[in-house]
């Protein structure tokens, strides 16, 4: 395909890399194509909190100079990336889509950002999310709602909804997201892109704003599985700055791009097909499994009873950890502080005339915290802090937090048992396709059901990938594949095989 047939912004990382290596295009031309695309569609999608065109063009020019000198460039050099706005970018706003961090400019790069920039990737902007990554539709953003490129009246999923929408709408070549209970895979599913949550500890979280530390993991959102492997090669590995990152060898994920599933053992856990699974989603997922079976894999129904407890376990553990992690927002070192923020976003009572500084004693400092946090956090974040604080409080710890941790062990055991027999587990990524904006905001339980199939992998710490496997009424359906810890290569091989025989990843929204 010549570059005149397809706009640069529509291409995958590997297509752009080939053009760059052949000197058919420059990195600056690539960056401009994406900047033009953002200008054309962003007012309808609203994927970005911050767009950084000048920085992107500067970085692209450096890559071009390097190519000019004859340097051997890596696969990400000159490739535009969008970064979820909960990862620190030196000198560029990092808001977590929260009013409490509306003006926060980090003084260092997250390790993942540093790795990508060193690899020559071009950072084009920061993407919208549910505030502090708490939500399933990006409707909890403290700033605005992101729209699904396949149907602007529907949500892009969440919490990495901005990243998924930006990839689907060709506003970036790929994006980074974070996944605590499905926040990469579920929006990837809703937006028809590839989203990988690596094994817990595979990717450094230094510079990722912490939500639930025993669950959070960073991963890529890409246009195809090959690109997923390219980005995984760039971001994985032990980091001395993150003591939870795993000190294990990182394989070359490109070597897993093999179209072969002969003798692969697929487990199909029936618990992932309950809970109001849309029949069309179920039939698309089963058709995908049948396709893999026709290529030589074996599939078998299994039962994992503990999966039915995933949601309550998650909604105790994640808020408990968040209530502790979010204690740092106190109006002292960064972000909003009551009485001092002049931004119009605080018009509703944000600028209190009663400066707490005037009050002496402990009451003064507590009042500073209380007012700052009350004004800075949105309703979902407050609710989770409250639940977490309650679940950890004296007298209730055993009944909630400890109990949830024990059930988490049962869930891990169910996965361990399943992986004794099977190489992968295949399920829907979410029980439905993207829902309408506003449809579930008043029903927090319905909202949380969107993550029911993705939460178990976080609780067990195992890797999972979502790839497109069909459509319902013009909206993408996601297929989730899970494997044993550190077996991302198996996920990539199975996903690649499916992709080579299906072609859903080539479909584009008509925006």
């Amino acid at each position: 395909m010549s570059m005149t047939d397809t706009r640069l912004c529509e291409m995958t990382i590997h297509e752009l890399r080939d053009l760059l290596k052949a000197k058919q295009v420059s990195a600056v031309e690539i960056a401009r194509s994406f900047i033009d695309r953002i200008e054309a569609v962003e007012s309808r999608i609203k994927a970005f909190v911050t767009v950084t065109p000048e920085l992107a063009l500067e970085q692209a020019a450096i890559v071009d100079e390097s190519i000019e000198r004859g340097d051997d460039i890596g696969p990400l050099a000159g490739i535009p990336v969008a970064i979820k706005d909960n990862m620190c970018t030196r000198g560029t706003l990092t808001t977590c889509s929260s009013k409490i961090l509306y003006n926060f400019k980090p003084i260092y790069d997250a390790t993942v950002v540093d790795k990508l920039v060193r690899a020559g990737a071009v950072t084009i902007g920061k993407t919208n999310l549910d505030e502090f990554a708490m939500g399933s539709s990006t409707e909890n953003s403290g700033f605005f709602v992101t729209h699904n490129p396949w149907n602007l009246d529907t949500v892009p999923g969440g919490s990495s909804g901005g990243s998924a929408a930006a990839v689907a709408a060709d506003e970036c070549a790929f994006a980074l997201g974070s996944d605590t209970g499905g926040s990469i895979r579920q929006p990837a599913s809703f937006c028809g892109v590839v989203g990988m949550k690596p094994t817990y500890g595979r990717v450094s979280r230094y510079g990722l704003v912490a939500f639930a530390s025993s669950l959070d993991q960073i991963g890529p959102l890409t246009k195809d599985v090959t690109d997923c492997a390219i980005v995984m090669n760039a971001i994985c590995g032990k980091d001395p700055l993150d003591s939870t990152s795993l000190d294990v060898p990182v394989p070359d994920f490109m070597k897993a791009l093999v179209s072969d599933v002969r003798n692969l053992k697929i487990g199909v856990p029936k618990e992932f097909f309950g809970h109001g699974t849309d029949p069309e989603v179920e039939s698309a997922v089963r058709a995908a499994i049948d396709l893999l079976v026709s290529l030589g894999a074996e599939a078998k129904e299994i039962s994992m009873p503990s999966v039915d407890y995933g949601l309550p376990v998650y909604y105790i553990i994640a808020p408990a950890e968040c209530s502790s992690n979010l204690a740092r927002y106190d109006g002292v070192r960064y972000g909003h502080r009551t009485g001092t923020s002049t931004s119009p976003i605080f018009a509703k009572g944000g600028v209190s005339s009663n400066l707490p500084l005037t009050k002496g004693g402990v009451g003064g400092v507590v009042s500073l915290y209380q007012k700052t946090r009350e004004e800075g956090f949105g309703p979902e974040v407050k609710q989770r802090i409250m639940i977490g604080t309650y679940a950890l409080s004296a007298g209730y710890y055993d009944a909630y937090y400890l109990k949830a941790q024990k059930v988490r062990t049962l869930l891990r055991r169910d996965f361990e048992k399943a992986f004794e027999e099977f190489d992968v587990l295949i399920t829907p990524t979410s029980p439905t396709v993207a829902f309408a904006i506003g449809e579930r905001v008043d029903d927090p339980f319905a909202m949380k059901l969107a993550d029911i199939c993705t939460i178990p992998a976080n609780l067990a710490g195992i890797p999972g990938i979502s790839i497109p496997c069909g459509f319902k009424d013009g909206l993408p359906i996601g297929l989730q594949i899970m494997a044993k810890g550190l077996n991302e290569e198996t996920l990539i091989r199975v996903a690649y095989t499916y992709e080579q025989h299906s072609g859903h990843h080539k479909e584009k929204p008509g925006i």
Partner: protein
Amino acid sequence: MKLTREDIESVAYLSRLELSEEEKDTLTGHINRLLENFEKLQELDTSEVEPTSHVVPVFNVFRKDEPRPSLPVEEVISNGPQVEDNCFVVPRVVET
């Protein structure tokens, strides 16, 4: 177990949130509904089960105690809403 409005007020204090009256009402309802859902966990016998706090067996991670450059103070305080003399300004805590 059902949370009363007073419980919500005391949890809000622990959480350092100055909730509005309206928020207290909404949260009392929402949190009680979630707690009902959590009751499902009591169906499971976990008396012989160890809790999982972390999925990978990482315990203490040590590094050599060697000095290395720290971030410049001017940058560290650059995000402070109120700073003075390279310090963050906070309300006076000690009573005079």
